[in-house]
């Protein structure tokens, strides 16, 4: 067996799903005995069979990846409860194994995956769970993405309707159906921060369920952004959300303003006042920046 063949075999085996009691499956999906498979390349010793030795790695793999995703979605875990959440994470990871050297990106596809897999959530909670997942991932993105040099007042002076404005890579815009910022903040307060990766062996995560605020459906627009290296959830109004989203998608300033107020019943002078307010605010928070190609990002 070449090194590559051995690695392909072992990688497949350690990533095989565990039983519901977190042990290695006795048989593969196509009916092969794991004991036979393990013994083709792993030696037994006087205390452990080949199966037992492979199982140590099989369990380690799952405990590690489950822990990594769980750390990024503590509020989703709290909303769903441990049992449902673990089932969801397992199913997600089976379809989305890690393709990066860092565990940081492991949960990146979870919000979209959850949208396509409502069966993992009680029907009444699907929209809420989706909102929570989106906001928790936005936090991860906002936490350590690039911060570019912000535009100055002089830069603003030269803008016209054809200008395109770039938004900070750490700024995430969300349209939500529930005020989940309150819920996620409540859970975050009860969760300690930790490193992305460590050198420790992984244990099964044990969660205590935090207290959650009640949630009633209501449309919320959020800007998740970083200021002084802390992540903030800022509620913005619908027009501001539309304006910023359009700019983020590369539309011109003129087009973006049009998109923001197309269905607005506000009088023109009120609109002008709002626009001025948005820009003053965004400038203060440094949300507008030079395009990545204009200059090298600064930290």
């Amino acid at each position, binding site marked *: 067996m070449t*090194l590559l063949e051995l690695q392909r075999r072992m990688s497949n085996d350690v990533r095989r799903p565990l039983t519901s009691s977190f042990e290695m499956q006795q048989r593969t999906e196509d009916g092969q005995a794991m004991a036979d498979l393990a013994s083709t*390349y792993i030696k037994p010793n006087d205390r*452990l069979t080949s199966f037992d030795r492979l199982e140590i790695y099989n369990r380690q793999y799952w405990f590690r990846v489950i822990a990594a995703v769980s750390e990024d979605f503590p509020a989703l875990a709290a909303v769903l409860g441990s049992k449902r959440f673990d089932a969801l994470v397992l199913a997600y990871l089976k379809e989305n*194994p890690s393709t990066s050297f860092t565990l*940081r990106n492991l949960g990146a596809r979870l919000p979209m995956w959850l949208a396509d897999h409502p069966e993992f959530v009680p029907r009444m909670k699907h929209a809420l769970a989706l909102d929570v997942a989106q906001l928790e991932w936005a936090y991860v993105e906002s936490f350590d*993405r690039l*911060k570019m040099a912000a535009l100055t007042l002089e830069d603003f002076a030269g803008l016209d309707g054809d200008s395109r404005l770039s938004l900070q890579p750490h700024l995430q815009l969300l349209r939500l159906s529930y005020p989940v910022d309150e819920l996620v903040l409540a859970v975050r307060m009860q969760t300690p921060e930790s490193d*992305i990766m460590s050198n420790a062996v992984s244990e099964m995560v044990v969660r205590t369920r935090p207290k959650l605020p009640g949630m009633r459906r209501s449309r919320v627009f959020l800007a998740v952004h*970083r200021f002084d290296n802390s992540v903030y959830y800022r509620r913005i109004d619908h027009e501001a959300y539309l304006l910023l989203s359009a700019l983020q998608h590369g539309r011109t300033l003129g087009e973006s303003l049009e998109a923001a107020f197309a269905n607005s019943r506000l009088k023109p002078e009120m609109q002008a006042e709002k626009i001025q307010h948005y820009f003053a605010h965004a400038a203060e928070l440094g949300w507008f920046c030079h395009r990545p190609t204009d200059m090298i990002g600064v930290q």
Partner: protein
Amino acid sequence: MPANRFNGFTDYGVGIGLRVPHYNHIFAEKPVVDWFEIISENYMVDGGRPLQVLDQILDQYRVVQHGVSMYFGSAQPLDREHLKRLKTLTRRTKTPWLSDHLCWGSVDGTYTHDLLPLPYTFEAARITAQRIREVQDYLEIPIAVENVSSYAEFHESQMTEWEFLNEVVHAADCGILLDVNNIYVSSQNHRFDPMVYVDAVPAERVAQIHIAGHSKFEKYTLDTHDHPVLDPVWKMYARAIERVGNTATLLEWDDNIPTFDEVHNEALKANRYLHANSSSPLPLESTAHEARA
């Protein structure tokens, strides 16, 4: 070795790992620490607090980078994006050497995020050494490879682990991060004499030493890094220092992390052996006790 080409001719003493739960204590108390080891991957990000914290640490302390995902022993080509980010970080930290593990962990673009053992074959030694050379050439700093704890052995193996280590580091012309706890853990799992391993290490290549705690279960021993260093490991450490000379030493404590002082004090126990090395006989402790499962 005190200062050699594998640790950038530095003379570092006893350090500890930089971990999130200790940030506040470090910034508030500014404790005297000879050096910190960071896990590179935690700072290979574009911005935000991780880099702010790192810069603050770099203002006051010496930092050495330790990686957990280079997987020198994976059979396929290196990940260029990973290397690029790692090099950017080495420029920031000015790490005098860089360590990662003698193991594999990814194949066909899928990552296990585990330090998987290699079969001790000539083919694996050749591939691994080649990849270490490539990383060393690209990063332009000395590389030290760390022996891992393992729980499985392969039918394919053609030599012992220490023979394999020798084979790889000579072919790669790289340094060694000797983890005496890992040797101990593997010796328990595979029933070999850990001192034979320590005695077989090419002493002139040792850039750094790791010490850590482990846990003994009924049928195997696990590298848990979650409590103090146990006596058999201190004995191996003493032997390693006797052979290698005073060497940069780092205590790994990654789980159930206690207070900063507790971790630091445990690490500083290494000084007993480092200082003993220059004069009196080794103060070994006689009773060996094991962690309960």
